[in-house]
């Protein structure tokens, strides 16, 4: 189990490195798809079928959106990174964050021993022991997101609504503007 997850995570890290480093945008997007499906398989091994289903479908939609956004643009490959000095500084900062992250992980519980097994007053104990009686739903994840923590879901709906509204506003303003002063916009370029 642990070795399988390790192999899967190595696969995802390799895919992510290729996705970040490759020159062609289309192959980069496809590598992101590989990472996403790897995450989905990992969810399935971690006994989380709900989010495995959601992750597969969301991954497909992300791929479609990204490909539709970048295909048929005349520029797909921008070579070269930033300047040498800023690259060095940012890589040093990343190393510092990595080392501090490893230090933080020492205070976390061991893998395969979650917090609620050792702490008796964790809220998960209530959800697991009384969830079926109190809400009547056999799927505890659904009973949490729609009953115990429904405020979270309400906030999620609000954020999704706002994001869609933002995308609509950003793309629609351009379309209206193009009809009025497209000649001016072309001339000043």
């Amino acid at each position, binding site marked *: 189990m642990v070795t399988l997850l390790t192999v899967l995570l190595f696969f995802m890290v390799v895919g992510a490195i290729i996705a970040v480093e490759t020159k062609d945008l289309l192959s980069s997007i496809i590598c992101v798809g590989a990472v996403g499906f790897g995450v989905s398989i990992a969810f399935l091994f971690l006994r989380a*079928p*709900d989010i*495995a*289903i*959601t992750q597969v*479908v*969301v991954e*497909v*939609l992300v791929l*479609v*959106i990204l490909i*539709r*956004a970048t295909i*048929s*643009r*005349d*520029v797909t490959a921008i070579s070269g990174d930033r300047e040498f000095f800023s690259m060095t500084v940012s890589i040093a900062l990343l190393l510092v964050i990595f080392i501090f992250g490893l230090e933080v992980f020492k205070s976390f519980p061991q893998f395969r021993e979650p917090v609620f097994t050792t702490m008796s007053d964790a809220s998960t104990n209530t959800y697991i022991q009384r969830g*079926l009686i*109190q*809400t*009547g*739903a*056999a*799927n505890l*994840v*659904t*009973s949490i*997101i*729609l*009953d115990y923590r*429904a*405020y979270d*879901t*309400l906030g999620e*709906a609000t954020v*999704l*609504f706002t*994001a*869609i509204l933002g*995308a*609509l506003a950003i*793309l*629609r303003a*351009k*379309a209206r503007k*193009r009809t009025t002063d497209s000649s001016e916009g072309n001339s000043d*370029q």
Partner: protein
Amino acid sequence: MGQKLTPGDSRSNLYNPQLGMTLIVKTVTRWVKGFIFLFGVYIVLYGHLTPGGGFAGGVIIAGAFILLTLAFGKEAALERMSKTVASEFDSLGALMFLMLAWLGLYFGGPFFVNFIQRNLPGKRFHLFSAGNIPLCNIAIGIKVGTSLFMVFIILSVLRVVVKKGERRMVQMKRRGE
């Protein structure tokens, strides 16, 4: 893809070979799209008993429409669910979720209380159980599905390809020297 259609012949563009992808993709889509939609509805309705729920089912329903858009072109999807209908369903899902929360206040309890389960609990492990969790699932499914369909339509319909390659080439050349 990319052809202008006159508004009159929108019904016939399902079989227009000029639009959309190849014949194989169109045929498979015609057979599969109903099953994908049905699977999404199943995932939403049985979300409180089996893996799934409003989020996963809503995304699957949106995926059925997006498959239609990709295979037949955007007119085929828009004549099944236009943008105004999609935005109305979007608001309807959010309002339905909020109304279920307010009804908890009305029936004597806190906001978001599961009042149906409290008053008349159904038989466990059956479809009509768990109070208003299935109703909330349906609301979330409508909301998520139509939102994602709408964002895809926005990104694909209002897409404008700008031909400014010349300017960029000049700039790249200048940077190279």
